[in-house]
């Protein structure tokens, strides 16, 4: 009883803070200085049509590297925690085999889903989307295969290879920026090209594709680790 009252009191206080924020909020009429800089200078600096992508990959590229590292760490810990999680022995039920419809349907859809994911991260500098979104779509192909057949197992070696290779190339491109252009993860190591074309914006499509592959591999490894806890 006292616990519930404390919780309600806490939430009431927090709600008071939030409502003060909400009623004191006046929307801006124009961009603040940082946003105005990004809006005005992105095309000259990076040649990317999608300003959000330019911020993530170039202006705040180091933060994105950190973010990918955090994601890698959490995927690694999920794998570690669940590695010996499966109960040894126990009743071994024969799994129900997936039906013909599921089998064929998932086989038909998987390449299309992978293609959509690749399309989204390759065009990340032109259209909404990018490496993280594309990577999540790649991993959803893994999820589809697991939903169609929960007993399916994936090659951990392949996932690990894809993940470490793309991470390594990401850092190498960043270091190339240090040597050939203005600094770490500078995208001007390749020509900026014309705005709106696929091969524009310097190294941004390359970096975002690597991020997409890495994120896809990390999410897939999380899904595979969670699926392997299922008793056979």
């Amino acid at each position, binding site marked *: 009883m006292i616990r519930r009252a404390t*919780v309600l009191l806490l939430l009431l206080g927090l709600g008071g803070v939030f409502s003060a924020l909400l009623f004191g909020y006046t929307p801006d009429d*124009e961009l603040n200085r940082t946003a105005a800089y990004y809006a005005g200078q992105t*095309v000259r600096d990076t040649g990317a049509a999608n300003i959000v992508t330019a911020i993530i990959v170039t202006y705040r590229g180091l933060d994105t590297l950190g973010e990918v590292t955090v*994601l890698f760490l959490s995927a690694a810990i999920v794998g570690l925690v669940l590695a010996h*999680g499966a109960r040894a022995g126990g009743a071994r039920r024969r799994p129900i085999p997936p039906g013909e419809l599921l089998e064929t349907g998932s086989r038909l859809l998987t390449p299309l889903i992978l293609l959509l994911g690749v399309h989204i991260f390759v065009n990340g500098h032109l259209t909404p989307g990018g490496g993280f979104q594309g990577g999540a779509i790649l991993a959803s192909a893994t999820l589809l295969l697991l939903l169609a057949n929960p007993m399916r197992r994936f090659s951990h070696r392949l996932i690990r290879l894809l993940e470490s290779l793309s991470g390594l190339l990401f850092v190498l491109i960043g270091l190339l920026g240090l040597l050939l252009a203005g600094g770490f993860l500078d995208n001007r190591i390749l020509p900026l090209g014309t705005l709106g074309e696929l091969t524009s914006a310097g190294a941004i499509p390359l970096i975002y594709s690597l991020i997409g592959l890495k*994120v896809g591999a990390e*999410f897939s490894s999380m899904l595979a*680790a*969670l699926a392997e806890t299922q008793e056979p």
Partner: protein
Amino acid sequence: MTEIALATGFLLILIGLYGALTNRNLLRMIVAFSVANTGVNLVLVGVGYLRGRAAPILDATLPAAEAPARIIDPLPQALVLTAIVIGVGTTALMLAYAYRLYLTRGTLDISRLRELKW
């Protein structure tokens, strides 16, 4: 419009915190944390919105010269993209720990896990 998004976001944060503080089941707490996480993202995106402006993506109808006067703030969107990805990572971690805890203790009820209670 912005006010609706902000109010919904704040409400989601409060609902999530209420759920996380009152539920005793770990899985329900994880779901509650996800709800609160969504609320924070909604508030952040809502703050970056400016009335009557376009998404920060340039094309033929939105040339670079007009961009500062016609796009919304791109920075909160980049931040929220980061926050969503990290949210997925933390949720996966919480689920993995909850599974491990269930295997070793046979329960997800936190009132029966008392080692760290004082």
